[in-house]
């Protein structure tokens, strides 16, 4: 079983390589020292306690949460009709339209950021602010939300909607009484996904923000000050835990929706 042994070593190295650096974050965040170096000095939670006394961090956190919440809702609302169109209707140019909506997935975010910056400043003449960050994030989140919703809507029988029409529901009633409840697991995972993507996003926020910061941008700006490093590590650890939970939750909801033969299950 040398093959199995070799593969195991490879898998362990692989995981260590990917997660090792990330796990340094929580490790040093509970280290009783202002420097992220070995040997470890002792266990402390004071970096976490200090966080709550630092106004700029709390402000940046507030900005990020508000942007992420708004962006996830807006991106989901915009993606929903597109997902319905893609799954329910045949129309000319559907494939190119879909490919076009998916494009932000493959465009490097630095290119996207520069392009958006040019559009916002040159063509629209809008001053940079958290609003422009949010707008940029909607663009980035759309393809993710769209693909989650499409995979959900593809999963159920088109004759359900026909039956709803047949029983006297106009299209809007059919949406609220049938499509929406059935798509709910997809909608929830779309919201979660949009939230995480916006919350974590750095490049576009960095380019498009005005005087106020989102959390990732603020953290980056603090790296120059050694004193604030432990606080950054503590905050990073918290974000790491929260994002992991959200991603797992979104995936669980999506999976259950896709594999369940009863699309109404959440």
């Amino acid at each position, binding site marked *: 079983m040398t093959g199995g042994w070799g593969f195991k070593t490879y898998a362990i190295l692989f995981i260590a390589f990917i997660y090792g650096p990330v796990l340094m974050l929580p490790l040093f965040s509970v280290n009783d020292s202002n420097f992220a170096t070995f040997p470890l000095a002792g266990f402390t939670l004071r970096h976490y306690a200090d966080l709550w006394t630092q106004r700029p961090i709390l402000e940046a956190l507030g900005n990020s949460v508000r942007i992420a919440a708004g962006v996830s809702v807006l991106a989901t609302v915009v993606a929903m009709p597109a997902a319905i169109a893609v799954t329910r209707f045949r129309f000319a140019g559907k494939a190119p339209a879909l490919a076009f909506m998916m494009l932000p997935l493959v465009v490097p975010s630095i290119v996207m950021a520069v392009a958006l910056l040019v559009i916002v400043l040159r063509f629209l003449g809008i001053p940079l602010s958290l609003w422009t960050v949010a707008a940029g994030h909607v663009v980035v989140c759309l393809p993710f939300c769209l693909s989650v919703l499409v995979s959900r809507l593809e999963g*159920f*029988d088109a*004759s*359900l909607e*026909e*039956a*709803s*029409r*047949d*029983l*006297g*529901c*106009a299209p809007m*009633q059919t949406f609220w*009484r*049938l499509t929406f*409840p*059935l798509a709910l697991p997809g909608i929830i995972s779309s919201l979660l996904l949009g939230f995480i993507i916006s919350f974590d996003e750095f490049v576009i926020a960095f380019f498009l923000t005005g005087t106020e910061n989102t959390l990732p941008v603020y953290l980056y700006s603090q790296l120059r000050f050694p004193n604030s490093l432990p606080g950054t590590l503590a905050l990073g650890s918290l974000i790491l835990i929260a994002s992991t939970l959200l991603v797992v939750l979104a995936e669980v909801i999506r999976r259950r929706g896709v594999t369940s*033969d*009863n*699309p*109404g299950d959440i």
Partner: protein
Amino acid sequence: MTARPAEAASTTTPAPLLRIERITKSFGNVDALRDIDFTIGRGEFFSLLGASGCGKTTLLRILAGIEQPTTGRLVIDGQDMAGVPANRRPTNMVFQSYAIFPHLNVEENIGYGLKNLKLGKEETARRIEEALALVKLDGFAKRNSHALSGGQRQRVALARALVMRPKVLLLDEPLSALDKKLREEMQLELRAMQRTLGITFVFVTHDQEEAMTLSDRIAIVSAGRILQIGSPQDLYERPAGREVAEFLGSMNLLPVTVSGPASVDAGPLGPLSAPVKGLPDGTPAQLALRPERLSLVEGEGPAGNRLSGAVAEAVYLGDRIHYLVDIPGLARPLRVVAPNSVAPVLALGSPVAVTWPDEAGLVLGD
């Protein structure tokens, strides 16, 4: 081939409720329906019978308003349906997949359409209860829709449509997913229900026995056209052409040439007698003979329509016996169905004569 003469032959046609006028439907370059033109009477149990892919579902969906005809007109109860969307038509449909709403329980499924009628709480509850009783699902009101068997789903779909009290109920192969025993049970129930409610049923099926069991009239559909419309008896005994003859039940077809008003020439088999209608002498035709109208006699048999041969196969089915008889000069053996009488089953290879009365033969132009 036209449907109208055959339709006129049927005995009583009730006042029309549905008028389907020269409807065609194309999907791109697929012609799913071509020039469909007939009427369905009030209170009729009307079936569309045809092989898979012949356009039955498409026609039903056009009646429901889910699909729009490419050309032609549909009138229901005197009202032109052009521009009337599915949600405002006096029709309801039982979908082939049943389309039970998975996020709702039985009661909510049945009440789904009632909400749109704004009947008030009590009337709604009363109607749901009535519908549950009608389809024998009393006690299942709160049952989750995915905890239902195929037969129960079928009943929920039926109740959900019937509770709307439509003028026309459209059913798309509602029984095809059920096992044989349940299917036969549901056939009887459907027929009884249709009689008591007096609702016009348009029933799609590919099962000829089902269509015969249930229908007042049947339209035979093939490749987007209607071949013939008539009562089960009309279609079985007076098929308008070879395709219908072969579609309904089993039929022996002998190639012949018309040789007189009551005779045909069967080539090497000699002259045979059969009533000929509307075909001039010398026309190539098919002599159609139902297996159950043929008799088997051992040996030579009496004079008249008689073909001599040998028993090639005998299948004992209890109440009847199916024989295949090889006739020299005929490419395919004749199928004969004999009632099981006291006479013993004929042995393979026995010399026999197949005989039939003149009027059992039907001469069909090609």
